[in-house]
């Protein structure tokens, strides 16, 4: 990477990564072998599909489509359930850093799931407080600061691995929710999840997704995500992880300069392929070398006065 003058190593609290890019939850991360493939593609860590207590088939098709500037999806949190997910973790954990994404309806669910993920060898848990298309989960529990605080503190008491909270942009009180995470002892914040969305077929006069509502991801959401990280950086002290529409090194650099110590890539795996991690790593290294940033940390928050 580069000439060795710069380092892509980064730290999110006690989690140390060789490179700052991770696969975002929901992308090629439902099976052990798939996670291993992503780890071998230049990702510093992988985040699993969000896993719940019971097996869940997710929403019926159509649950995904291409739109201008990205994708919409209403996958509906499909996953085999935490018991069976042990197999996928057993296969991937020996090959690299795996962050266990989990979703639940309240503090008790999240605590049970986090404890399992810790047993399975996850290096951190990521709490899905932000999925915009699953009834009773995701952003429905993640937009109330009191609920978020109680979930984070319950999980903190249940596990000793770092606890990351993935927040939604579908709120006007993002920094309040961020403060609730920080006050409850949360170790890092991941932002953003998809923007709540809808697509309608004029010919058939109905929403296209079986779930009607969906979430928008991809390049179109990047400025929203960068703003969210900038806002959170202004309000909080805990480390941030940027996600939303990153498909090249410039996008990643924007998030880092807004205040992120690491980032996640999702939709670009569809549009650019798994080579996107190495492309970003190489581009970032060259940029850092030319502009005199020896480390990721030296670039974090550079856009703040």
């Amino acid at each position, binding site marked *: 990477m580069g000439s060795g003058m710069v380092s892509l190593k980064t730290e999110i609290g006690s989690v140390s990564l060789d490179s700052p890019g991770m696969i975002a939850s*929901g*992308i*090629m*991360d*439902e*099976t052990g*072998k*798939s996670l*291993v*493939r992503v780890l071998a593609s230049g990702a510093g860590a992988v985040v699993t*599909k969000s896993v719940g207590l019971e*097996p*869940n*088939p*997710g929403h*019926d*098709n*159509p*649950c*995904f*489509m*291409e*739109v*201008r500037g990205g*994708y919409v*999806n209403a*996958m509906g949190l*499909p*996953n*085999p*359930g935490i018991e*069976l997910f042990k*197999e996928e973790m057993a296969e991937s954990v020996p090959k690299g850093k795996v962050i266990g994404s989990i979703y639940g309806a309240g503090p008790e669910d999240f605590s049970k799931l986090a404890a399992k993920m810790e047993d399975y060898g996850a290096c951190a848990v990521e709490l899905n407080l932000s999925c915009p298309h699953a009834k009773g989960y995701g952003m429905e529990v993640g937009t109330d600061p009191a609920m978020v605080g109680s979930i984070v503190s319950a999980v903190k008491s249940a596990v000793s691995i770092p606890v990351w909270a993935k927040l939604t942009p579908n709120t006007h009180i993002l920094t309040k929710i961020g403060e609730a995470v920080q006050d409850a002892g949360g170790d890092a914040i991941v932002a953003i999840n998809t923007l709540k969305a809808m697509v309608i*077929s004029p*010919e*058939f006069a*109905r929403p*296209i997704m079986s779930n009607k509502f969906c979430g928008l991801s991809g390049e179109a959401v990047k400025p929203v995500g960068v703003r969210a990280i900038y806002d959170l950086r202004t309000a909080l002290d805990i480390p941030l992880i940027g996600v939303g529409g990153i498909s090249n090194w410039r996008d990643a650099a924007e998030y880092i300069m807004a205040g992120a110590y690491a980032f996640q890539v*999702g*939709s670009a*795996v*569809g549009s650019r*392929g798994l080579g996107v991690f190495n492309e970003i790593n190489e581009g970032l290294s060259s940029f850092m070398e030319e502009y005199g940033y020896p480390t990721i940390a030296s670039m974090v928050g550079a856009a703040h006065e």
Partner: protein
Amino acid sequence: MSEVVRIKKVIEENYDTKTFVFDWDAEVRPGQFIMVWIPGTDEIPMSVSGICEHTKSITVKAIGEATRRLHEFKEGDRISIRGPFGNGFDLSKGKMLIIGGGVGTAAVMPAVQQTGADTIIAARTDRDLIMLDRAEKKASNVWIATDDGSRGFHGNAVQLMKEKLAEKKYDCVLACGPEVMLFFTYKACEELDQDCQLSLERYMKCGAGVCGCCVMDDMRVCKDGPVFTRQQISKLSEFWVSRRDACGRVVTFR
């Protein structure tokens, strides 16, 4: 993006299979597939079974709710599609032997039409055979196999393939059909050191290589496939062993 296209013609292939020809200018390679939305029911992956400049087709066997509903569609009706997706067959590999089993014949038909290669069409019985007329128009030879011997060779596609490979030298076998047929096609090709490309299938959601639910081992059938080479298949431990259901749980075949 999804596109709404108009059905131009409906062809009855046999008692449970119909071909829908629709207006669509998109560039499609033989072996690629599209996601077809049947409003109110489902969205399903379907191989493109015919490729002309301004029209394309899909060939649908009525086996579930969505496909039965699709069978009610008539000329002039509109369907919503996404794609094309997947890699398609590599037709630059020299002399081909093309094999279609059952409704899998649909996925190889564009390759037959573009190459005119020798073709085997196989099915359980005479009544289940599809698309013979289109194959016979283009292919140098069309050989038929039925499991019950009601037409052509009495036996399955793999048995007939072995006979043909013994008679003539081919550079590559192209095949699509039930997974059990493809598994034994692969086994036979391994034994004979015969190059092959097989079109595989798994439960799909996004179709675009994003969600990862259609993986076989670490390969996404929708994006890395659906066509895999013999070399790639030799590394797929899940081939004719297991698949994943909508939850991502392992379901074994045998």
